[in-house]
């Protein structure tokens, strides 16, 4: 017996289908045009000129113009508008100052001609007004909403382990179209499909062989169980969810600041799926895990906080993100609508939803829940540093570690070489024995050789302990800019005794701003007012790992690029070079303490390294401090203290998350404009779903919201549809983020119903559903389309075969790493972001980095403002908005990747290097095909390989790497059947 009466369900679903069809064919176009006129012209005018006295709680003369019902009922003088009849419309009389005079003189006076024309045209053409009427919520009547297919209750049925239902429901749609299911796929195809499907990785050849040779009836089930149990499952299915919730590692505001702690949320998602956490709880935790942890343990509490990273990862907007916070709330409401409810709630920010039953009031009811929530702050340009992070270890331990750090820091500061008295003393000493050897302005794009300006001073007698200094001076405070420098000193009597500042390029990450080389000592100084050491060590300047240096605050600074190639940061820095950047009010100085008496040739250059930045440019000065005791004093000054490297801030485990904040209902924003505040809207659930009020208004309401969402059938349908989509590439509803009236109707309504019922019956655990789906014959079909199917069902909506698909961006990269033996399967953790103390990101110089890794792609650092070049190339997710489904585009720049990319070439070489040592070419070819294709070559392929091997020049390794490239770039490697 069937677990539920199939026929009844079928007929019910038929009704639903018919209904869905009707809804989809509503004559939108006719009123869309009028709507547009209302939205573009009429509504703004009413808001600007009439709402002041005739909206919300203010309805002068009893007339309210902020809804259709308002003017229909009218005020003290009766209905304000008679649609289509200008003569009978009081509003028209009033704006023409006939009888009534509106707007009155003290409220702005009469409307101008154009404005009168707009209202006249509107009334004349029927006064179409899409604003709420009692029978209508947003774009749907209450009656329509009541019967909308995706809002219907899901009937409970017992859990089943049998996949027969799936096949039956799929076949029910094949028959009428004259289609039959395809044959079962061969075992190699099947295990390759399943392995990518559950883990995003290719199977190992050994696993393929074991499966092919497993004669037991539950061989495939064993494969599925093994894959579901592997940690790679959560990494792959976690990535699906991260797509939907637009996960990113940066905040997305104008300087795109790193989110150094959000990785904990990413890993939480992965672990939760690996543990098969029921999906309703999974979602509840993300909305309110801080308020309602899964249990009372510390671990559960910590995880509950981390899970709310879903909310805190919301995109931030603008320069001062606090000023555009309403956009962050929109991002959240829009995302939770799409990801959890298949609803486009974001549309209701500016006006009632045009097609679905969501009013602007609904939107602001949810808005209040999030504006009552306190979010970790990522920092932004005017408020540079993160705050409001959540401690994940007990407060007392955190406090102790922080106190230890602060004590060490205080001690360090006290030991700094820059004691004001010593600087002042040295300044006086310097001034007594001082000669300027050369000085010159460096204009825009200027490049000055020191020798051209030193004249007779180019060769100079210098005694041991005397100092030569190249100072770079800001001009006014407009000149401070990146300047490339070189200073060289050569003993003319012994040319092998030569010192060049170029030697410092690779030494900037040493532990002191004072560096000894062959007896001479170089120092990086602020020389505005006596010699002051630049003691702030800077690594990864501008987020670039090639740039290190020493600075005081942001500048003045000295830094070098160790890269062999130009580095693009705020400007393009030449390779292997030393730079200084004076401060807006400070000059910088590179000093050299002479190691032995001699005649020295001084040379080098000073060059503008940031042309087209405008300003007055900088100038330089070559100075000679002619007292042999000065050098030793300066060196002693740098050494008379303890550590020069500051203590490292303790890394306390913290989460970028949320908690309840100041609780209050929000005001509606007219037209979405936060400056045009309307009525206060009580926090509550969506009107169409009952409009439940908060039982506990002292809380933000997130916890209740998370229950409302996960107990609604729309949630179940959205998730069940996604599971199917992530197995087959296409959802039963092909618009997985929209199960509303603008979304596609389900292709197999009963199948979706069955999946929903089973999801509920299995406590919202995904793994039993994977088994149900993957053990079906539908899933195990081969990928060959019959002629008939191609003709009657070109999109394979009826599933008469398994639709082949291309690997996703992450699957391509992970596969290349895996088959070439480079994949590091350990979970990723934090990214190597520059330390927070060094952040000076701005919209002019936003954070920008790509961190190479051999871990799985789900652990790559994903930036919002600058897409990762690889992910962007292969249709990776958009980290700015929910990605419902991946595209599979084919563009020539992808082919260029396979022809010339370094990472790809490296993978091919690694693949060849990994081939087992054998002189037998057959063995080597077999190995290659086994690793890359998980099969042995056919005869034709073997011939091809033979010929290639023969024709291709170079060593055996070159040949194999070259052939590996062909295999790795091939369609067979890139597509799943």
């Amino acid at each position, binding site marked *: 017996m069937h677990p539920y009466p199939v026929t009844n369900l079928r007929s019910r679903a038929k009704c639903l289908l018919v209904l869905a069809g009707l809804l989809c064919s509503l004559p939108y176009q006719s009123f869309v045009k009028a709507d547009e006129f209302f*939205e*573009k012209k009429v509504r703004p005018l009413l808001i600007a000129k009439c709402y002041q006295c005739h909206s919300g709680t203010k309805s002068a003369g009893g007339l309210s113009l902020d809804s259709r019902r308002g003017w229909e009922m009218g005020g003290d003088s009766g209905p304000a508008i008679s649609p289509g009849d200008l003569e009978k419309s009081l509003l028209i009389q009033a704006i023409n100052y006939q009888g009534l005079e509106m707007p009155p003189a003290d409220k702005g006076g009469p409307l101008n001609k154009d404005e009168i024309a707009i209202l006249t045209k509107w009334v004349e053409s029927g006064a179409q007004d899409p604003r709420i009427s009692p029978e209508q919520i947003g774009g749907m009547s209450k009656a329509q909403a009541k019967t909308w297919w995706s809002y219907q209750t899901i009937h409970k049925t017992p859990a089943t382990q049998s996949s027969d239902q799936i096949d039956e429901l799929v076949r029910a749609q094949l028959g009428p179209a004259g289609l039959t299911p395809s044959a079962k796929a061969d075992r190699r195809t099947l295990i390759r499909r399943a392995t990518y499907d559950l883990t995003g990785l290719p199977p190992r050849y050994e696993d393929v062989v074991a499966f092919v040779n497993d004669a037991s009836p539950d061989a495939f089930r064993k494969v599925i169980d093994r894959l579901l149990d592997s940690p790679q499952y959560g990494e792959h299915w976690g990535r699906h969810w991260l797509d939907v919730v637009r996960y990113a590692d940066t905040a997305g505001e*104008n300087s795109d600041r790193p989110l150094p702690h959000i990785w904990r949320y990413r890993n939480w998602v992965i672990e939760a799926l690996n543990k098969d956490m029921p999906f309703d709880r999974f979602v509840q935790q993300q909305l309110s895990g801080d308020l309602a942890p899964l249990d009372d343990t510390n671990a559960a509490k910590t995880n509950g906080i981390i899970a709310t990273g879903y909310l805190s990862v919301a995109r931030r*907007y603008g*320069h001062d993100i606090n000023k555009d916070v309403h*956009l962050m709330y929109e991002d959240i409401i829009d995302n939770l609508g799409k990801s959890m409810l298949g609803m*486009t709630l974001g*549309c209701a920010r500016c006006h009632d939803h045009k*097609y679905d039953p969501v009013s602007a009031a609904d939107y602001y009811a949810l808005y209040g829940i999030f504006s009552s929530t306190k979010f970790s702050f990522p920092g932004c340009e005017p408020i540079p540093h993160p705050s409001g992070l959540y401690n994940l270890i007990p407060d007392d331990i955190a406090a102790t570690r922080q106190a230890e750090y602060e004590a060490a820091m205080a001690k360090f500061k006290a030991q700094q070489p820059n004691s004001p008295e010593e600087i002042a003393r040295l300044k006086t000493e310097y001034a007594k024995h001082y000669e300027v050897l050369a000085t010159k302005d460096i204009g*825009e794009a200027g490049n000055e050789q020191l020798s051209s300006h030193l004249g007779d001073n180019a060769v100079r007698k210098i005694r041991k302990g005397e100092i030569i200094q190249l100072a770079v001076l800001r001009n006014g405070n*407009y000149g401070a800019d990146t300047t490339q420098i070189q200073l060289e000193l050569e003993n003319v009597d012994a040319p092998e005794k030569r010192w060049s500042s170029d030697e410092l390029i690779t030494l900037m990450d040493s532990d002191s701003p004072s560096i000894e080389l062959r007896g001479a000592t170089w120092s990086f100084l602020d020389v505005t007012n006596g010699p002051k050491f630049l003691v702030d060590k800077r690594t990864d300047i501008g987020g670039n790992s090639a740039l290190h240096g020493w600075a005081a605050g942001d500048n003045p600074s000295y830094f070098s690029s160790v890269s062999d190639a130009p580095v*693009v940061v705020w*400007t*393009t820095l030449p390779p292997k070079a030393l730079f200084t950047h004076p401060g807006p009010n400070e000059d910088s100085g590179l000093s050299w303490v002479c190691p032995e008496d001699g005649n020295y040739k001084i040379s080098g250059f000073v060059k503008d390294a940031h042309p087209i930045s*405008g*300003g007055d440019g900088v100038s330089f000065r070559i100075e000679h401090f002619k007292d042999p005791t000065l050098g030793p004093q300066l060196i002693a000054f740098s050494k008379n203290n303890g550590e020069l490297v500051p203590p490292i801030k303790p890394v306390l485990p913290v989460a970028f998350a949320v908690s309840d904040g100041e609780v209050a209902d929000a005001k509606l924003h007219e037209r979405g404009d936060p400056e045009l505040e309307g009525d206060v809207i009580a926090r509550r659930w969506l009107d169409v779903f009952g409009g439940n009020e908060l039982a506990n208004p002292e809380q933000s309401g997130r916890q209740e919201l998370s229950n409302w969402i996960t107990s609604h059938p729309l949630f179940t349908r959205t998730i069940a549809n996604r599971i199917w989509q992530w197995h087959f590439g296409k959802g039963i509803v092909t*618009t997985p983020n*929209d199960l509303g009236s*603008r979304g596609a109707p389900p292709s197999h309504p009963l199948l979706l119903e069955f999946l929903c019922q089973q999801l509920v019956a299995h406590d919202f655990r995904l793994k039993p559903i994977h088994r149900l789906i993957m053990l079906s014959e539908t899933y195990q079909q081969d990928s*060959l389309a019959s002629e008939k199917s191609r003709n009657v069902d070109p999109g*394979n909506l009826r599933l008469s075969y398994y639709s*082949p698909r*291309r690997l996703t961006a992450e699957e391509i990269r992970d596969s290349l790493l895996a088959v070439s033996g480079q994949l590091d399967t350990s979970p990723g953790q934090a990214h190597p972001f520059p330390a927070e103390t060094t952040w000076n990101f701005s*919209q*002019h110089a*936003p954070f920008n980095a790509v961190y190479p890794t051999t871990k799985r792609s789900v652990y790559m650092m994903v930036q919002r*403002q600058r*897409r990762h070049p690889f992910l*962007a190339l292969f249709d990776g997710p958009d980290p*700015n*908005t929910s990605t419902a489904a991946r*595209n*599979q*585009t*084919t*563009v*020539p*720049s*992808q*082919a260029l990747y*396979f*022809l*010339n990319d*370094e990472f790809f070439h490296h993978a091919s070489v690694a693949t060849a290097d990994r081939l087992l040592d054998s*002189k037998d070419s*057959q063995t080597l070819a077999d190995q290659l095909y086994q690793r890359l294709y998980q099969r042995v070559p*056919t005869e*034709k392929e073997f*011939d*091809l390989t*033979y*010929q290639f*091997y*023969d024709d*291709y020049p170079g060593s055996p390794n070159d040949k194999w790497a070259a052939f590996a*490239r*062909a295999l790795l770039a*091939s*369609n*067979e490697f890139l597509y799943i059947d």
Partner: protein
Amino acid sequence: MKQFNRRQVLRSSIAGSMLLPGLTECLALDEQKRGTNQKTHFPAKAKNVIFLFMTGGVSHVDTFDPKPALHRDHGKEIKADHPEIKDRPGYERIYLKRPQWEFSPHGESGIEVSTLFPHVATCVDDIAMIRSMHTSHSNHYNATLGMHTGSFAFSRPSIGSWVTYGMGTVNQNLPGFIVIAPRQTYAGTQVYSNDFLPAINQGTLVVPGAEPIANVSPRLPKDRQRLELDALQALNSLHLDKRSNKEALQTRMKSFATAYGMQTAVPEAFDFSKETESTLHNYAIQPNSTAGFGWQCLAARRLVERGVRFVELIDTGSSGNWDAHGDMMSHVGLAKNVDQPIAALLKDLKQRGMLEETLVVWTTEFGRTPFNNTADAKGREHHPWAFTSWLAGAGVKKGIVHGATDEHGLRASEDTVHVHDFHATILHLLGFDHEKLTYRHAGRDYRLTDVEGSVVQNVLA
């Protein structure tokens, strides 16, 4: 023990046949497909666009919008509810600040241009100057995003993506939308992102230098690459048998032929060695140097010649640009970088007859304040209320000024043109009704101009 060697191998017919003939065949096929993907809504005046974007906010009152009254009233205190001074300490009082450069009329049209742009001044008779531009945000990031996508906060497709989506591409060996920028501007890659439009419409970034487009330089000698490609296509041909997704697989095979061609076509497009010395001189290009805007302008002409639909040139990046808070004198170097090359580009296009089919757009994200917080301040602040942009070429009225700002250049006051109107006009010149060039995404029909925009009829020839 088996060894690979010639004697053992029976020459495979598959491999041999897949050599170049395969590739050439694919290319020939593309040749037939030339033309547009979509139909325009009405005949297009412009077939290509060169979009010149000056990053940082060019001061209108110092360049293209003469304001004698600003000279007269220099130092006079004014009041303005301006976004850049609101709640800003030290900006409680503001004073008009005079332009630092002289204006004079040029050409037959007599349009006034300042001494910052002496070369562009010689082209005014081909230009429609819009002096009444205004925008919706006073922040670089948002205004730059708005000028490129019509959205001032969210990521949306770039104008270049919309245009290539609408018109399709002509040269299969080159991308349809190319952005040449020495550095990233504000809002990063979002300014040339295809967002939800098909990926083929994404802007391809060219950074002047050794490898203009990522991975376009062959890593291997040609003969080796050919052998590998032949092997790849042979493997793919074997694999193709009986697949249900043949079309996708063949498209991918073809994309390798295109990529192969790009390796030659792209460097060729950026190889100026066949340009005459006088051309290089006109564009102010130094021999063997890719520095400066001249290189970008000449590259733009060469790309348009080769059928690239939309070329955007960004003059600097998100710092060291026109953002002259400190001192307006920084405009001198920036103007010098672009002035002669832009004039050379306009004249070159005209002389070659290309200006009739090419629309040249010059713009920035916003203007600069005609005031500051002290009478002797050297710089100017961000100014979304008014700025100047101009159009030239295909379908554009020649030698006219559209719109005006008030006497001090504070507000666009006559025939104002919002960024959305500007976009609508550009699309119109390309044959599109901006309200009809839409794309269905997330349940909504999106367009470049959001729900706004009207075509500026007065600038149409």
